[in-house]
């Protein structure tokens, strides 16, 4: 489908403008927001669920919920924080419900991981059979994260995997920065025990 001039203009608009346009009935503006944040939201939800299909469904649901509720969005936080909050809350509820159904459906590892300096260094210590160890590490990481409680997993995912700041995480989960730090502290202690073979 050819991109129109209007759509190109929308691509460069701020979230705030796009939200206002959507609220006035311009659904194309919301499409730009979906395109802008889908991958980041998918990554977060995926790392919390360790399931590719669940992540896709949850992100779709998140955008539908955001689209339907956009009229109630007053702009007290950024659109990104707001939509992120919807995604994280939905994912936490979902993971609680499926507690006894840990079915992993993992995404592939990007081939560029082979050249990651941290990985190269780590693998040289662990085993010369890098391929086998990489798959094993991949599974072990997911397994260990799934053993954390949902709020702890959410904080570790946002901070240590997604690289969000404590302040942003606090806004998303509506708590103090101190709570975020405290949760990170306990989650890391647990993870250090679970991943001691790799540390």
């Amino acid at each position: 489908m050819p991109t129109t001039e209007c759509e190109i203009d929308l691509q460069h608009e701020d979230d705030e403008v796009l939200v206002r346009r959507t609220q006035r009935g311009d659904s194309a503006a919301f499409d730009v927001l979906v395109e802008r944040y889908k991958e980041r939201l998918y990554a977060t939800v995926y790392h919390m669920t360790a399931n590719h299909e669940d992540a896709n469904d949850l992100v779709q649901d998140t955008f539908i919920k955001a689209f339907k509720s956009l009229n109630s969005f007053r702009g007290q936080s950024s659109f990104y924080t707001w939509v992120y909050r919807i995604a994280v809350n939905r994912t936490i509820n979902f993971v609680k419900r499926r507690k006894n159904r840990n079915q992993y459906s993992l995404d592939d590892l990007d081939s560029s991981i082979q050249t990651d300096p941290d990985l190269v260094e780590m693998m040289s210590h662990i085993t010369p059979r890098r391929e086998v160890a990489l798959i094993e590490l991949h599974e072990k990481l997911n397994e260990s994260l799934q053993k954390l409680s949902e709020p702890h997993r959410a904080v570790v995912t946002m901070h240590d995997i997604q690289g969000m700041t404590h302040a942003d995480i606090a806004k998303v989960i509506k708590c103090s920065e101190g709570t975020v730090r405290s949760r990170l502290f306990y989650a890391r202690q647990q993870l250090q025990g679970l991943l001691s073979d790799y540390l």
Partner: protein
Amino acid sequence: MNCRKAQELFDDLSRERLAPETAAEVRQHLVDCTDCRVQEQRTARLQRLLALKRYERPAPEYFNNFLSEFHHRVLAEAQRTGRWEQALGHIEELLAVESVRVWRYRFASAMGVAVVVGLMWMGVRQMDDPASVAGQMAGTNPSLIFAETGSSTPSTFAASLPSLLQVTPADYEPAAADSAVLTPAPTHADSPSPRYVLDRISVASASYDVPNVQF
């Protein structure tokens, strides 16, 4: 600064997100505390390990259809909501029609009258039924009483009640001839006449005196 506080600030220190004075405090704590130095290294290694998860990605073409799937889902959701609202609208419209409204009140009134009549009929039926009353008085199911006595209907059961108890009206009245031998119980001393059937039973008083026996 204590160990716990310092450990919570390690990643802020490594990302240079601390105020200069706080950063200096954490650094000083690390110089002084061996446990925290070890812990800092372990935390840094864990963070590098977790960062590898960023390489877990779906195939590049995975997101190609994301937007069209989103549109499809929004449409389906709107249709689902639309159908529900449409159904509710039909019901509201139906109830809003004047003739339907009249019939709705008539039907509700008829149902009310039927319920009241039904309740009254059930009440009258229960009052007319002696077996039911007898059953209630005995605290048992009347049908069980019929079964035990061999009476087939409540009326025959009612007729057979005196014989079942094996008493006659006379049994309730004291016999004048027997009044001399009556030994009323002390608690009934003030009673003018015996009130119970058992009061008429005379019992010879037992004597424990040793008889005069001659050998």
